[in-house]
Every structure is written in C-alpha cells, then in structure tokens.
C-alpha cells in the first residue's frame, strides 16, 4: 500500500471538515426552516378548525395529562430533599435570611424548567419524533398529501404544540408546588410568615429575572418539542459512530438546552 503524502492527507481532512460543517449548517437550517413553517401554521386560525383543533387538543392531553401527576410527585419529593438540605445548611451557618433566596433561585429558576423539559423530551417528544419518522418512511405523508391534507399541519404541528404546552404546564405546576413547599420548610405550618415570604419572592422575581425565566422556559419548551420532530422530517446522515439517529437527535437537543441554560445564567448573574 503506497504511503499517502501529508499534503493529500491535509486536503482530505479539510474536505471532510468542510463537508461536516456544511452538513451541520444544513441540519440547523432545516430545523429553523421547519420551525418557521410550524410557527406560521401555529399562528394561522385554519390550523385550529374542527378536525385539526381536535387533533391539537388530543396531542396536548397526551403530552401533558399522563405525565403531570407523576412528574409533580417526583419533583415535589426532589424539592423536599433539596429544600431541606439548603435550609438546614443555612441554619447551621447562621445564614437563615438567605435560605429562601437560595431555594427559590436553585429550584424554581434553574432546576425545575430543566427537569420539566427533559421529562417531556424523554416521555413524549422523542418517542413522538420516532413515530413521525416511521410514518414518513412508510409513505404516509405522501398519501396524506395526495388526499390534499398537509401532513405538517395535521401530524407535526399538534405534536410540537403538545410538547411546548406540556413543558410549560409541568414547569408551572412544579414551580408553584416548590414555592409552597419552600414556605412550609422555612416557616412551618403557619400563616405568620406570609408577608415576609411574599416580600422575599417579590424581591427575587424582579422584572429582569422574571423575563429571563419566562424566556428560558419557553425556549426549553420549543427546543424540546421542535428538535425531535424536525429530525424526524429529514434524513440524518449516519455518522461513523454506532449511536442511533434518535440518540444523535437527543444529544443535539441537550446541546441546545445547555446553550439556553448558559445564556440564562449569564443574563441572571452577570
């Protein structure tokens, strides 16, 4: 076997890198394009007419309904543990006045939206994306198009809306539960601490923090709902690694969520 010259090797490496970058850009462009199409559909009233509206409602329930009690219970348990640790530590160091602040910032602002997004991704979005992928491969989309039905509006949009709604609902319910549990953990079963608690919560949720929190949760929801669906609508080229297509989509989603989380942290604390 003849030895390859370094020049040819570098050329090949550059070529591969360029192709990889192009594929990467094309992939994200596809995701963005599908996202834009779905946004247009989501804001057009025709997507919610009789049949389509019913489908959207059903998907919303399938996304949020079954997982809501389980997730809320699990998060409540997790909240109790974390709140207890933080409160006991703060008492031990004489930093009681910072206990509530730390609990609310750590749990409500950071952990709960992330946990809700991951829960919905694993429980609903990724299986839904896999299902869509199979439908597309089976040629059902083509059949629908032949009957004059837009598969994007009929099959894809309800799943994305369901995913977004599920993340928002789970996060909101868990945040409220967490705030109640934090109150009980700090003050006990009494109403005497309500004024100071309200003041502390109002102090933490200033307009900037509230805006960043809302934006972050919304972006988590969109990322979790959109990425698996968008990946199902395109043919992801198989990489040399042995990871499956679903797993690659999951990693992509995690990277995006990490970027959103970092951006929110920068916005909140810098």
């Amino acid at each position: 076997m003849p030895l390859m010259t370094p020049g040819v090797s570098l050329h090949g490496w550059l070529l591969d890198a360029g192709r990889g970058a192009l594929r990467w850009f094309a992939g994200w462009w596809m995701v963005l394009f599908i996202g834009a199409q779905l946004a247009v559909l989501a804001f057009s009233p025709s997507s919610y007419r009789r049949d389509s509206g019913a489908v959207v409602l059903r998907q919303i329930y399938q996304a949020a309904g079954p997982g809501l009690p389980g997730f809320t219970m699990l998060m409540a348990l997790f909240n109790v543990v974390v709140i207890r640790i933080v409160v006991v530590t703060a008492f031990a160091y004489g930093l009681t006045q910072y206990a509530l602040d730390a609990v609310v910032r750590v749990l409500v602002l950071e952990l709960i939206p992330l946990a809700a997004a991951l829960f919905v991704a694993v429980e609903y979005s990724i299986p839904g994306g896999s299902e869509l992928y199979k439908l597309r491969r089976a040629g059902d989309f083509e059949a629908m198009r032949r009957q004059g039905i837009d598969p994007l509006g009929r099959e894809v949009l309800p799943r994305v809306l369901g995913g977004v709604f599920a993340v928002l609902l789970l996060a909101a319910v868990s945040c409220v539960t967490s705030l109640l549990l934090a109150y009980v953990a700090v003050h006990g079963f009494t109403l005497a601490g309500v004024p100071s608690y309200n003041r502390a919560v109002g102090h933490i949720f200033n307009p900037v923090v509230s805006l960043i929190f809302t934006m972050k949760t919304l972006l988590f929801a969109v990322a979790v709902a959109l990425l698996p669906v968008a990946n199902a609508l395109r043919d992801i080229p198989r990489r040399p690694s042995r990871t499956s297509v679903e797993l690659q989509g999951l990693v992509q989603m995690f990277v995006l969520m990490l970027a959103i989380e970092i951006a929110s942290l920068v916005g909140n604390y810098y």
Partner: protein
Amino acid sequence: MDDRTPADPPEPLAPRRSLRSLELRAALLLVFMAALLTGAALYLMWARGAFEATQPLYLTTDDSEGVVVGMDMTFSGFPIGRVRRIELATGGTVRIHVDVPVKDAHWLRSSSVFTLEKGLVGAARLRAFTGVLDDPPLPTDAERMVLRGDVSAEIPKMVADARDVLQNVDRLTAAESALSETLGELRAFTGRLNSSQGGLMAAVTGNDQDARRVGELLERASQLVKTLDGVVQKADRQVLGDKGLVTDAQATVRQLNALLQDVRQSMLRVDAVLKDAQGVAGNAREATADLGDLRADVEGSLRKIDALVTEINRKWPFAPKEKEVRLP
C-alpha cells in the same frame, strides 16, 4: 397514528366518545394552565407592590456603593420601603428614590434618621430610625441625608495602625532594645538578690564591702538615735518643765496682757483729747467764716467813705488849689 389519518374508515362510536373526553380534558388543562399563569403573574405583581399606594422619599448620599434597585429599607428590622431608582444628582451626590407604602409611612417622622450600613459580610442595609413618634409625619417627596457607616472603609486605616503597633512591639522586643537591656539588668539584680552573700544590701550597693559598711552605718545610726533620744528628753525638761522656758513665757505673756490693758485706757484718754481738739477746730472754722463777713462789711464801709471823700473833694470850696483831701 393511523387512526387519525383521514384515510381511515369512520371511527366507531365508543372510541369517538373517548376522543371527545380526551379533548375535554385537554381543554381543562388549557384552562388550568391559563389560570395558573395569570395567577402567578398577579401574585408576583402583588408581591412586588404593584397594587400598593406608595409615597416617594428621596435620600441623598455621597456614595451609593452597595445600594441596588429593589433593595429594602428597614425600620426595626421590618421592610417599609423599596429602592426604586438611583441617580446622580447635581453636585455629584447620589439621589436614592425610595417608595414607601402609605400604610407604613406613619413610622417615618420629620425627625427620622436614615443610615446606610455596609458590613464586612452581606449586602448593604438601608435603615430608618425614628426617635420621637409624636413628631409630625414625614411629608411626601421629602429629601433627607443618609448617614453612612462603612466597616470596610475602616480596614485599611486599622491595618496601618496595627502595622505601626507591631513595628513598635518588634522594636521593643529586639535583642538590642532598651527593654531587653533593662530585663538583662533586672535579671542580674535578682541574681544578686538571690545570692547568699549580702542579700538585698549587696544587690543595692553592688559589692559585699559596701554592704558591710551599710550595716555599720545602720548600727551607728541606731546609736545616734539613742543619744538623740536623751538629748530630746533633757530639752523637754528645760522647755516644758516646772521652771522651763514655756512657763516663763506664759508669765511674760500675762504681764504683756496687763500692759496692753493700760495702753488701751491711755488710748481712750487720747481719743477724748482729740475730740476736744476737733471741737476747737470747728469753732475756729466758724470764726473764720465770721471774719469773712466782717471783712465784707469793712470793705463796704471803706467804699462808702471813698465815695464820701470824693463827694467832699468835689464840693470843697476852701482849697481850690488842692482839691484832693488826703486821707491819712
């Protein structure tokens, strides 16, 4: 998924009913979500005091370090106001806009004092103190100075002072220092004090011979004191004895006293004489006054005589050559 594609045959009745139920639950979830979000938004707005009537209070200070928008102003540990805005005013001072809820404003009086404290650990604290709660209430848009108490600003000065103190201590405890030399001398002194030869005297004088001399000196002093004691007893007898000096002095004093009595009586007589002399002098003064009147009368008579002589001279017929009458 196939059951939702339009290519499917019409759905049976039971699944359709269950689908309707699903849609209903989904609608309920939507309503629940909307209520949750609206409630959360309203609660946060209420907690941040959006629905509360407030009155503005402006605090001025020369440094706003540690003050952040949204921080509380406390009164006796209770938050009664919130910093709304911080701005640079004319003259380079800082103007802190504090919103005080109207329901808590009665704690602030015209004599209230506001402080900004910054400890070593933790955030700065804006506090209000009201000494006299009967004073008139703080007016709306009141502007007050903030007293600053900054512990961290004192640290560099404290460190510099501590360094000076440590340097002084170092200088004091150095091997060549005066304190060290003094301690050395003290050690030598106590060594001599504890030695068997001479004891305290040897330690004070420095050698044994001097200590011995001091001992002799003390003995002589003791003898001298005894002699002195005898002398004093003799002197006592001579001075305070029956025929002593004091007894003579007492007799002399008695005689002197009698003599003084005589002198006093003589003085009384002299006093009477002086009174008589004073009466004579008074009479002489009155006589002198009468002499003045007499002189005036004499002068009047002489003037009349002068006029009479002039008249006579004018009418003198017998001696026209010599018209003047010569008075003797």
